[in-house]
């Protein structure tokens, strides 16, 4: 699986910061600002990881997780959120909802390079295991 990450983030500055962290961790980062662009990217190339922000304009990405899973089966998903100042519970609610939806990684903002590095290591390990399982299945 390619070491390419799709980052859904509607803040341009945040998208740059996050993509730099993934690039430093050895990933190619593709940033998109909304779901339409994200799905367009998923149609044209494969990704090793999806990093999705929860609150994108008026949408809640967690309500659309099934769409991403259909478009990119098996691809690990990381959910990031800074919450909402107007609604202090929104961040915790979103992270709990994401965990219940069995996403692979939770990244509460602000997060740092060490967090991204750890996620990347786990993703690499996931694909390594997945590759080994596939090889075993093929051999069996």
């Amino acid at each position, binding site marked *: 699986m390619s070491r390419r990450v799709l980052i859904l983030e509607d*803040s341009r*500055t*945040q998208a*740059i*910061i996050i993509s*730099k*962290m993934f690039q*430093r961790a050895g990933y190619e980062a593709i940033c998109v600002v909304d779901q339409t662009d994200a799905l367009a990217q998923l149609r044209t190339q494969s990704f090793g990881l999806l990093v999705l922000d929860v609150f994108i304009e008026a949408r809640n990405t967690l309500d659309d997780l099934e769409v991403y899973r259909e478009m990119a089966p098996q691809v690990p998903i990381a959910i990031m959120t*800074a919450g*909402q*100042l*107007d609604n202090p519970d929104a961040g915790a609610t979103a992270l709990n909802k994401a965990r219940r939806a069995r996403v692979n990684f939770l990244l509460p*903002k*602000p*997060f*740092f*390079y060490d967090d991204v590095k750890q996620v990347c290591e786990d993703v690499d390990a996931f694909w390594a295991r997945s590759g080994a399982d596939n090889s075993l299945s093929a051999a069996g």
Partner: protein
Amino acid sequence: MTLAAAPKSEPEFDPMLQTAMRTSEELVSLMNAFFVRLDTRRSGDFISIADEINKAKTEIRSLRPQDISETRLPTAGAELLAITRDTENATNVIMTAAETMLGLDASAPDVKDRVDDEVMKIFEACSFQDITGQRVSKIVQVLTQIEQRVSRLAEAIGLDDASPPELTAEEKRQRDLLLNGPAIGGPETQQADIDNLFSSDVTAADADKQNSQDDIDALFD
């Protein structure tokens, strides 16, 4: 002997007095209508004033002044403090990283990795921008609410803006010395104007025509 009661007769009034009394009665009758009209108009005025006061009180109540002073303004103040704190922290991290990079030995074999580490710290420090955007939006929201409420009150009680108050000496000094902070959208005085003023092609013959303090002051008025 029985004395027969003397027949009662109308008291005799002085004719002048009688005339004066009749005139007074006519005057009272005329004034009565006037006073009735006057009372009605006055009471109407008072009712109208009372209505206006009630309307103003209702409007002031709907402004929820306690909500503004006890909740919204303190929240906005706390957000501003948080922005100042976050900005200061980020600035410190960025300056420290820059200083570390300046101090690196360019010939060291790991210099690239160390520069990358410091640059990553700079990127991480910029993460505060996300929350700051939300904080600023919250402050703008509070200001907009206050503006709307005050405008509604002014409209309801029919207030026009009074002429602006005279500047105090301190305010004039702040204005003249440009101590009111940066202007939105850039300095009011264009750099080109300043450059022209200090242009170096002034010859000795023009020395007496050189810019006086007044010319310089005029640029900033």
